[in-house]
């Protein structure tokens, strides 16, 4: 069943992709093929492959229980927040928070998580910024 849905989504993407390809503005200076042809070929094969997946599905993958799924969703949200807050908070603070969260969700104790988070962040900062000289996001405190 999962595969049928997957195939249907793939087919939808293929149609969307093909439609978007037809919307591409042609330049007056175009080569013999133009910017549309190759995307349309891709969309066609994508559609065929999706169709094949839909018609001949593999056995269902084992989906995680709802709890685990929320776990992953929460991690995604944390990572997106990290991406946004990195320039605001500075590398060390943001990384300490994010890695403390991740290690906590992977089974470290609360206090341990804080310590691991801070150590990870300072460790990466030391290796990559102080030793290797990579420029990392600066926050209000300059690190």
């Amino acid at each position: 069943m999962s595969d049928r849905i997957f195939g249907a989504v793939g087919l939808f993407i293929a149609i969307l992709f093909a439609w978007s390809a037809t919307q591409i503005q042609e330049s007056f200076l175009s080569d013999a093929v133009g910017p549309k042809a190759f995307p349309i070929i891709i969309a066609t094969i994508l559609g065929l492959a999706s169709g094949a997946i839909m018609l001949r599905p593999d056995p269902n993958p084992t989906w995680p229980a709802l709890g685990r799924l929320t776990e992953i969703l929460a991690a995604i949200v944390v990572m997106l927040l990290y991406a946004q807050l990195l320039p605001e908070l500075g590398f060390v603070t943001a990384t300490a928070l994010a890695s403390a969260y991740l290690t906590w969700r992977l089974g470290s104790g609360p206090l341990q998580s804080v310590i691991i988070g801070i150590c990870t962040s300072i460790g990466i900062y030391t290796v990559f910024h102080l030793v290797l000289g990579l420029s990392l996001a600066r926050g209000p405190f300059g690190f």
Partner: protein
Amino acid sequence: MDMLSSLGDGFAIALTWQNIGLALLGCFLGTIMGALPGLGPSNGVAILIPLAFTLGLGPTASLILLTSVYYGAMYGGRISSILLNIPGDEPAMMTCLDGYPMAQQGRAGEALTLSGIASFVGAFFATWGLILLAPQLVKVALLFGPAEYFALFALAFATLGGVSSTNQAKSAFAAMLGLGLAMIGVDTQTGVPRFTYGEVHLYDGIDFLVAIVGLFALSEVFIFLEHRHGSADAAGKKIVVGRLTPSWSVLKKCTPTMLRSTVLGFLAGVLPGAGASLGSFIAYSMEKKLVDRDGTFGKGDPRGVAAPEAGNNAAAGGALVPMLALGVPGSGTTAVLLAVLLALNITPGPLLFQNNPDVVWGLIAALFIANFMLLAMNIPMVGLFTRVLMVPPRILMPVVAMVSFVGIYGISGSSFDLMVMVGFGVLGWVLRKFDVPLVPVILGTLLGNQMENNLRRAVTISNGDWTTLVDSALSIGLWTVAVVGFLLPIFVGGMVRRRMRRAGDEEGSIRD
């Protein structure tokens, strides 16, 4: 002779303190990454690319660092296979079969040394194979025009799923997804934006480094979160290494096995879509057929350890041949290495040997040096690497995630790229759940624009006549191989797959 003098020049390039240091670092990190279950050669190299890039290393230096990681991971994979019966990466799957029984009999040290030597033999001769074969392939490739290149790319995609793919439709889906992603951005030939939907950040296209790190490294973090697999696999198990030196008689018995496996592994590596996992599998099964007269394979036969290790390391060397000579990688990790070259503005393929001989030969010399380093590291210092297995993923995985973010942020300094990377991480997780291979997605993103350019060039040269694509004998040949390579696995693939499945069950579509 020409070849030897080029190789000599290569050694002159590779033997600077910086390059030796990088090779040493790469070997060390690679072995660790290979040893840790969950981090394989492709994610290991993927995480380190942005770093090599932001550190401002030159092309030769970056390649030396990253191929050392690649070779190192091939060595490291065996450690957890032998000690814990958990393959450190997919190619090391077959090593479990005889390695773990040997460890149970108290011969873990012997198995580790033996497999270390086998890895060395495999990688050493495969590097010679690379030197001999790649220039010949370059000669053929110089005959290629745009139409032939287009056919060659098609061949790479058609065969990438290969005999071990579970579902060819899904391989095709993955390849088209990658190609589709490559189309995003301003069209290089006419300058019109495509699939950008007005988002300025997308005008440059999607950075393939972002895609690679997201798909490989971040998706791994999600997999660990899904299973809440936080404690070390080694926790609670007592690791006893024991005596390290195998007896001469064992070594002697294993020598023909290693040599045969090296040849097979190398061939499996050169062929598109096969890669190291298949190399070790073929090597093991063939040795089993040939020399297993008393039925000792699977019960701790030293030859059963030597064969897959020689096979997968030889395949790793073999896989570099099409990547360097044609610019078309045949496996996941070489696809990632190709990304490095492209990111450094070096066009791989036949011209690489003419325009950047320093890169090619420096790399090959570095492979020899790295191989000796790895032998030295992996036999006397193997105890150090077994300690690494005690690091629990609950500490390791956040580090992997954070290092990935650091690398990508270091390149562009943009939050947008980080968000895209998270998106790719999720996509990678979903695709892995559906058993869709990730390597074609990467390869599509990498090669999409080149493939399209070759198509457009070919058709434009012939004034819009599309039949030019199948006009020469060479391109017809390539198309035939592509079609056969795509259809064959549908019929015979099931058989090979079932055997590999029986040999060991493994989640994950990251294959090498």
